[in-house]
């Protein structure tokens, strides 16, 4: 729906959750009523001169603060009139800047309004009198984001210089109740603008242009100083962005606004272990598919045969047919998508490329049969009554009989595709699933969870396998559990049923179920033993987890055939090279 105020710059939901504020380009603040089935316009607040860039509710819901250009307005929600207009100093290190943009405001329950602006200031205002209480100049560039903790005893701001500052409410003296806001620690974990910050009860979370999500735990709130309290830097999404057509050796790369299709190169040379072989045929960039409109791509998939590509944005679903004529390829959009296929959270093709499985965000699973150039909707598996959970991970068995689907919170459901009904549900687990796969022949479902646990569940037997029970009983190696990134992909070797291949962003692992499990005393990351070592030692040190850390950051790894493995690395330097240059800061000694 349209707010009729030009571009919307800011939004804020009321503390009780029933009202929504929208700040528009034309300077208007509009209040909307949120009802279970729709959002309804309620009224306009006094219109301001320039765009409303930030909004914040008073926790009681009676007042709001709106940050504009050069001033902050405080509105009374009941009357809709501006109570105070607080002008912000344009001065910046003694020089008058053109404008002072209020990037963020926060309204505290004691009536204090905290503003962050483009002149590098964090300012405290008294909303009752409309006066400036305290001013902290913290940066030479914009302060772009602010987040307050629930207790209102600390907040965090992010600047365009990549610094995150922590402010705390501390008592002035130990025996008085007077408290003041003090800037405490700066954190420099970013190289570029910090566009968004969040304050959880135990951590500060920040993210920005440099594509990193940084979680910095607050040490004083952490009970035990163990590995969980360490700083985390998340660079890649915890999802699979690449799909592969094994038959045609194609890789489909999903970017925010486009898809790229590449054909892998090949070689005829042979060499020793560790050699880099010359390519006889270079990799081909076959396709560059841009989305229409501003929406990001949510998910994409290429069929194993390589003749179908499907992707989805937040509101539309696209299916393309690829035709190969020698070296040329032609792309043909499959039109007339059914109305229920509006958006998808996950798309999967069956192994023989005859079926398409789409997990929609309403919680249902659509099964579509693909014919030459057209399709037919076969069935929709509706979610169980009472649950609204959407499925975001899918796995299909190679024989095409089973479909496993997992939602955001635990629960993996296994469907029988022949009978189009629920076969069984894997016992619930506390941590979300990060990867799913069904092994060929045995139809064992391998599930990786975000706490790094791996389960193997036999679909025909409807129970965990013996190996899974053993490893749960013994527990995983502590180093395995301390890895930072989740497993994003699981695959199997067609000829070696005892092997499970899985990877995260920093390692690739083959689990050999026939070997003994490692305990905490054994070396988990043992490099390949030297050849001159005797077989006895090699056998003694061997354990089920064969881990390789050669490729990192590793985005995708899969077997193409029995003898070929494809790995996709995304060097961080390449991403950084594409970013705009960071704000130049004078460094001492340069």
């Amino acid at each position, binding site marked *: 729906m349209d707010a009729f105020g030009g571009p919307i710059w800011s939004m804020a939901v009321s503390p009780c959750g029933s009202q929504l504020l929208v700040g528009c380009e034309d300077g208007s603040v509009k209040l909307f009523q949120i009802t279970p089935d729709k959002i309804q316009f309620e009224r306009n607040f006094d219109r301001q001169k320039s765009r409303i860039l930030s909004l914040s509710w008073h926790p009681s819901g009676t007042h709001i603060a709106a940050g504009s250009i050069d001033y902050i307005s405080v509105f009374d929600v009941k009357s809709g009139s501006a109570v105070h207009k607080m002008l912000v100093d344009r001065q910046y290190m003694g020089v008058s800047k053109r404008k002072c943009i209020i990037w963020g405001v926060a309204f505290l329950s004691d009536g204090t309004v905290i503003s962050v602006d483009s002149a590098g200031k964090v300012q405290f205002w008294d909303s009752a009198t409309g006066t400036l209480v305290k001013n902290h*100049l*913290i940066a030479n560039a914009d302060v772009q984001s602010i987040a307050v903790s629930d207790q209102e005893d600390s907040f965090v701001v992010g600047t365009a210089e990549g610094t995150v500052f922590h402010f705390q409410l*501390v008592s002035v003296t*130990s025996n008085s109740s007077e408290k003041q806001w003090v*800037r*405490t*620690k*700066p954190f420099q974990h970013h190289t570029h603008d910090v566009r968004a910050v969040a304050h959880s009860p135990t951590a500060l979370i920040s993210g920005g242009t440099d594509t990193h999500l940084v979680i910095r735990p607050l040490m004083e709130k952490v009970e035990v100083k163990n590995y969980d309290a360490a700083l985390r830097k998340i660079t890649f999404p915890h999802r699979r962005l690449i799909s592969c057509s094994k038959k045609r050796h194609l890789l489909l790369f999903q970017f925010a606004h486009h898809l790229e299709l590449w054909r892998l190169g090949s070689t005829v040379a042979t060499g020793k272990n560790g050699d880099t072989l010359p390519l006889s045929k270079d990799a081909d960039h076959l396709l560059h598919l841009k989305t229409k409109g501003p929406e990001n791509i949510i998910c994409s998939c290429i069929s194993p045969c390589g003749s179908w590509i499907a992707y989805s944005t937040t509101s539309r679903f696209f299916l393309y047919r690829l035709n190969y004529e020698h070296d040329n390829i032609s792309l043909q959009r499959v039109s007339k998508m059914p109305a229920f296929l509006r958006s998808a959270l996950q798309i999967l093709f069956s192994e023989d490329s005859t079926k398409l499985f789409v997990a929609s965000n309403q919680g249902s699973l659509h099964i579509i049969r693909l014919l030459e150039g057209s399709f037919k909707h076969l069935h929709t598996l509706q979610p169980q009554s009472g649950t609204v959970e959407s499925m975001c991970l899918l796995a299909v068995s190679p024989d095409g009989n089973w479909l496993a689907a997992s939602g955001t919170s635990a629960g993996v459901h296994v469907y029988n595709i022949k009978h189009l009904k629920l076969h069984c549900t894997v016992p619930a687990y506390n941590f979300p699933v990060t990867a799913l796969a069904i092994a060929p022949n045995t139809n064992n479902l391998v599930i990786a969870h975000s706490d790094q646990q791996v389960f193997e569940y036999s679909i025909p037997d409807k129970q965990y396998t013996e190996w899974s029970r053993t490893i749960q009983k013994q527990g995983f190696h502590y180093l395995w559990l301390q890895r930072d990134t989740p497993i994003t992909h699981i695959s199997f070797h067609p000829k070696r049923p005892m092997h499970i291949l899985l990877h995260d962003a920093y390692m690739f692992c083959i689990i050999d179920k026939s070997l003994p499990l490692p305990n905490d005393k054994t070396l988990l990351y043992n490099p390949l033993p030297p050849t001159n070592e005797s077989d006895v030692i090699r056998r003694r040190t061997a354990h089920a987890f064969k881990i390789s850390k050669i490729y990192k950051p590793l985005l995708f790894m899969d077997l193409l055939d029995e003898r070929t493995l494809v790995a996709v690395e995304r060097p961080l330097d390449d991403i950084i090279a594409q970013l705009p240059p960071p704000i130049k800061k004078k460094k001492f000694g340069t």
Partner: protein
Amino acid sequence: MVEEESVRVVRCGGSELNFRRAVFSADSKYIFCVSGDFVKVHSTATEECVHILQGHRNLVTGIQLNPNNHLQLYSCSFDGTVKLWDYVDGILIKTFVVGLKLHALFTLPSAEDSVFVIINKEKPDVFQLVSVKLPKSSSQEIEAKELSFVLDYINQSPKCIAFGNEGEYVAAVRDFYLSVYFFKKKTTSRFTLSSSRNKKHAKNNFTCVACHPKEDCIATGHKDGKIRLWRNFDDDKKYTYTCLHWHHDMVMDLAFSVTGTSLLSGGRESVLVEWRDATEKNKEFLPRLGATIEHISVSPAGDLFCTSHSDNKIIVIHRNLEASAVIQGLVKDSNIFTGLMVDPRTKALVLNGKPGHLQFYSLQHDKQLYNLDIIQQEYINDYGLIQIELTKAAFGCYGNWLATVEQRQEKETELELQMKLWMYNKKTQGFVLNTKVNMPHEDHITALCFCNAEKFENPTLVTSSKDGHFKVWILTDDSDIYKKAVGWTCDFVGSYHKYQATNCCFSEDGSLLAVSFEEIVTIWDSETWELKCTFCQRAGKIRHLCFGRLTCSKYLLGATENGILCCWNLLSCALEWSAKLNVRVMEPDPNSENIAAISRSSVGSDCKYTPYFDNTSKSLTKIFFLTSLI
């Protein structure tokens, strides 16, 4: 034994003024500083010393105003006493005998009858902060033996202790931790910084501490130049700190202003930094203070600051960061190449001062008169740089002329030498550069001497050098049609068998010049520059040469490196006597026939310098009597 009595040591001053923080009086009219065994009271307006509080028998290590009477001052000393002074009249009121070596003193308004001192317990490195109860008594000297222990294992420097929030707690720093002792709760909290050897934390050491006067906030300075502001430190878990970083080198001292709105810091950069509202972006600077800031103190009235510097100077600074007064003591450079000289005109002691300067220091008033910039180049303070050094200086013609030699040697073969001659200008009452001679010699200049005889109208200067030559420089007319001017030129170059010239000396009447060439002393006629005679004793290289004066003018004294003092008779051209005395410095008394020789005697393992005066007119037995006193 007559000689022993005639040698009397008079303490003229020149002590360290920067040993401890200076203290302001309550009305900011006076500033107090420790000075050796004394406490000096200076006026902040005129810089003049108003009183010298004498009475301690060892180094004064701490001064504080009496918090209950602002006209009284406490001082403590290594002699184990705490003394209470009336500084307005300069009278000692009371002496409290503690009996332990006291390293620092603190007073608190809340603790009326006690003071805090740092004492040394048992091991040489373990220092304790204790409270000393000062008993009330009418007598002048009172025993104060009631000590109560406060903090153990602290740093001996008073910069590492600070009392906060009107004496509710005391903060102490040492190495990598900050400990806070709360008097009411009687608990100590300890906060440790990472001390791992990696590059990031290697210089986390605490160097100084200061407490906010109004709030519960502790500021600590660190070796890497950071300042940390600690808050919430009454909670072992919730404590938090923030960093201020401007200094690139160690923070030497910190002080909060009286209201606590600003924090002052200083270090080797010689810049006083004022942090306003304890924010990193809001800071003011007072740069170019000349030397490392060692201490910062703030007047109780809040209108003045003062900084003590490593060059023995105290600068009084206004609240608006303008330096208003400088109290300069004797600058002690690590190397005094020029030796000690007396300016004949002002009778001031002249020696190396600030880098590249000669300081003129009045012994009578114990204050520096002025600094003469000799090298006239910007001094760059950085570790490992090879600086130009002022190595020699000499006064001539009753203080009308000053000759200086500066050198810089980067490598063995690359020597930069410069000789400058300065003329005294009566109008400006100062020395003005007259002649600059680049590379006066090929090698190091070993000695420089003016001919000071009255009959010599033409000023003459002799330089001797390791290149084997001695050069005679005379003042000549350098006038042209534009101006009348004089300048110095080389008149004669002498040498003796390619030996290195080690010293030179004019006789009293200026008729003879003695130049020593390693082991040989040559005597030259100063009229014709003819070699008159030579003396050779084969007793090692001659280090010092000195003509006798008045009735002893027929004698020439020479001291060698091997510890032999020789006396030659110039009339008979023969050795008169010789003695075994390892002379380090030899200087004639301008008013008598005595010559002072300072020799190095080894007592036990360490060496000490003992002064001896010998009178060349006395018989040989007298000289030997003197040496037996060593």
